[in-house]
């Protein structure tokens, strides 16, 4: 079997002196959609921030294990190089858009490290505005004044503008009305069909397991179950704890 795109092996991380992940391991293959599900405080966001190599104190400190991308360890790599060189983007929990910049400026800023020419960039802008027409209508608007759902679209759009081939999404449906939520997932599916690898965190475990190929269940910093989504949905433990019976 080929080496997976992303391998996390026996990862331990701490916030201060408190260990938040106690040796978790998982893989994401190229072109796959993988989901991490788990209760509040299980360590899902922590895992994604560790993979993105974000610095403490907001993100955790990695104290053991390894994270490999195409077989190479990425521990100690600068977070901006993860985006620029590995084309691995994170849409963080809580969006973190630049509220004092316009929609257009937010998207432009995400292209900071790209070396592509104007044609490629324009193609990507067009694509993002096509995927999220609301952003197009609000191009010149200060992004602070967008609705929560629109801000979420901007956060995803911004990740796409960074030129990513692998996107990690931390609760992208947060604050979205049901209809918009389905739109968002349809959009993500479309991106996946074009070759985008996706690692997804989603509160709605039902939705996540229907959408993804494989899943990992994480509980207080440990992986407690994993497998293809179909089998996880049949797993009585998972059913009881996360799928509402």
């Amino acid at each position, binding site marked *: 079997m080929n080496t997976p795109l992303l391998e996390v092996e026996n990862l331990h991380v701490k916030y201060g002196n408190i260990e938040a992940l106690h040796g978790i391991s998982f893989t994401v293959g190229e072109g796959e959609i993988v989901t991490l599900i788990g209760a509040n405080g299980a360590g899902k966001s922590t895992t994604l921030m560790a993979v993105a190599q974000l610095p*403490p104190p*907001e993100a955790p400190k990695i104290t053991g294990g390894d994270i490999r991308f195409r077989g190479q360890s990425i521990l100690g790599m600068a977070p901006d190089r993860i*985006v620029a060189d590995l084309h691995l983007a994170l849409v963080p929990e809580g969006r973190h*858009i*630049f*509220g004092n*910049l316009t929609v257009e400026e937010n998207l432009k800023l995400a292209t*900071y*490290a790209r070396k592509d020419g104007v044609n490629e960039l324009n193609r990507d802008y067009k694509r993002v505005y096509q995927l999220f027409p609301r952003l197009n209508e609000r191009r010149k608007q200060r992004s602070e004044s967008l609705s929560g759902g629109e801000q979420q679209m901007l956060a995803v759009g911004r990740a796409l503008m960074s030129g990513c081939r692998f996107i990690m999404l931390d609760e992208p449906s947060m604050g979205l009305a049901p209809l918009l939520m389905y739109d968002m997932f349809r959009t993500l599916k479309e991106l996946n069909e074009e070759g985008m690898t996706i690692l997804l965190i989603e509160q709605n475990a039902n939705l996540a397991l229907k959408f993804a190929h494989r899943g990992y269940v994480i509980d207080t910093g440990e992986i407690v179950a994993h497998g293809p989504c179909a089998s996880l949905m049949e797993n009585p433990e998972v059913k009881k704890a996360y799928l509402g019976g």
Partner: protein
Amino acid sequence: MDFIIQNILNALQWGSFYALIALGYTLVYGVLRLINFAHGDIFMVGAYIAFFLATTMLGPSFGLSPFMTFVIAVPLTMALTACVGVTLERIAYRPLRRKGAHRLYVVITALMCGLILEYGNLAVLGASRLKFPDLIEKSIWSVGDVTMTNLKVIVIVAAVVVFIFLNFIVTKTKIGMAMRGISYDKFAIPLMGIPIDSIIVFTFILGSGFAGLAGLLFAMSYPILEPFMGMIIGWKAFIAAVVGGIGDIRGAFYGGFLLGFIEVGVVTVFPSTYRDLFAFSILLLILWIKPTGLFGMPQSTKI
């Protein structure tokens, strides 16, 4: 009438100095939320750098004309002063940032760096004052009773050009957008593929470079240099930046010019010993009415 115009010109000149220095406070604050108390002393270092460049270039080994010396000294002074600012960032502020030090310690470090620059200068060069050489031939234009020196015009034009340039950088370029972005949400900057440290270094280059320019122009206008020359003017520029709304580059300019006008205005009415008392009282009143400064918006956007 002539009297008024004359005073307006003087106010514009002093306002230009304050504005050029206030910029550095505001840029660094906008990006790092750090009040760089060493900034007034970077201005002083800029004046000394200009002095050594000028005397060297005028001296026998180069023998350049005063005008050529001026032309070369402007970019060189800015570049070298920028290096000093960046060095300070590297050796003093960055290590603290890495360790996640509390803001108070960073501010105290800045204060100490300023003192080290002052007393380092005193230790190395002694207490004697230096006389800055004449670089441009002073031409004085008189219209009625109004006199205007070319140097004053250069100072005012420099401030305006710097303002337009900075406005362009901050609103139109990606690095300027990144500077604004950091001030809003530092966490997300690396997620955009942007190395935070390079944006911070760029900010220090801009702020210190313009302080260097101010140091050179100030030394040409008031050609006596001493190690503590940056202290009071630095404090004043800092206050101007706060009154204008710290973190906003327009604020630095309006605050700087406002202070220039208040000072000159006070002196036309009262004895000059009252100048600073009145000037600071008026600024205090402005802050009392609008605590965020003229352009400051509570919390959100900076730069």
